[in-house]
């Protein structure tokens, strides 16, 4: 897979997620289907920083990549504590408005592009990242991140439907009818 192919695939998911974030009702950021789920505000926050921030974190921990990373001083992002596994439904960071989520996802996409740009095609497809038995090519790591974002985009779509938004499959894929 080329970097360009991956970028196009991921960008289509980011754009569709962005579209759905813009449809989120501002007064429902604390809503969730039941208490075992994240709130809408937490879901938006989690979705909106799932590519760039993840790639930045991965690259900064790997000496091979940290040397090629841009010297940009990115603002700190709110992240939950993963030290004991995945956080519980009440432990995720949340945004308080859709506009905050939109700013976050735009910044995250810019961060992704800045970090991804210096990565070579060979590193992308062949150099292993991760630790222990969980090492795999960066390509597969990033495909998983795209799949992860796609999954949460669907979760967001379902939240909006359950909240009464009149949206359909075209909105899910970022292709709303004009």
């Amino acid at each position, binding site marked *: *897979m*080329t970097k360009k*192919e991956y970028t*196009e*695939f991921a960008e289509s*998911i980011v754009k569709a997620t962005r579209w759905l974030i813009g449809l989120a009702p501002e007064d429902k950021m604390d809503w969730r*289907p*039941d208490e*075992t*789920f994240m709130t809408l505000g937490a879901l938006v926050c989690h979705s909106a920083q799932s590519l760039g921030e993840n790639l930045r974190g991965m690259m900064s921990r790997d000496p091979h990549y940290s040397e090629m990373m841009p010297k940009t001083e990115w603002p700190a992002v709110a992240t939950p504590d993963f030290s*004991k*596994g*995945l*956080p*519980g*439904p009440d432990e995720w960071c949340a945004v308080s408005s859709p506009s905050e989520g939109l700013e976050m996802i735009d910044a995250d996409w810019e961060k992704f592009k800045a970090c991804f740009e210096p990565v070579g095609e060979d590193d992308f497809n062949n150099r292993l990242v991760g630790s222990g038995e969980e090492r795999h090519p960066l*390509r*597969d790591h990033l*495909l*998983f991140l795209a*799949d*992860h974002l*796609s*999954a*949460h*985009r*669907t*979760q967001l*779509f*379902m939240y909006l*439907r*359950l909240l009464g938004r009149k949206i*359909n*499959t*075209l909105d*899910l894929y970022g292709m709303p009818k004009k």
Partner: protein
Amino acid sequence: MTKQEYTQFAKGIVNATRGLIERAPDGKMDWRPDESFMTLGSVIHHVSDPVGDALRRILENDWPEGSDGLPPADAFPSVAEAKAGIERLDKDWAEFESRFEKLSEDDFNGKMVQPPWMPAPMPLRDYMLMCAEHLSNHRMQLFTYLRLLGEKVHTGHLYGMADTNSLEVA
């Protein structure tokens, strides 16, 4: 993207979906979050022919009536029990492997196709990525249904890593 890379990516999503179907309660196939959604049985039916049938249709240009539009939630066929979904999914993967094997790498990356709902042709690779992404979306829908039905599933089940203890919290 190579065929092998695609197969690995799609198989991960298919296997995780299979694990979720196995956990669907047979007595709840008519359940849905509200009447605007598909039933659980319809979601399972819909996710159980994600890539093999999709590849066959695009290669043979054989589409069911209404493929250029959005059917209402009640128009989707359903399975009567989870086992039927598993059988459909396994059959679909076998069909995918059989047909995909015959394609060259150039066909996969360069052959232009156009499903009825897309405004312009696209490489077969991108169509197949769209099929995998489509399955990923409905896998999350199925996962959410199971959670709402009280099934004890966590993020590990969503991604086919149910034995990963570190994922059990959420």
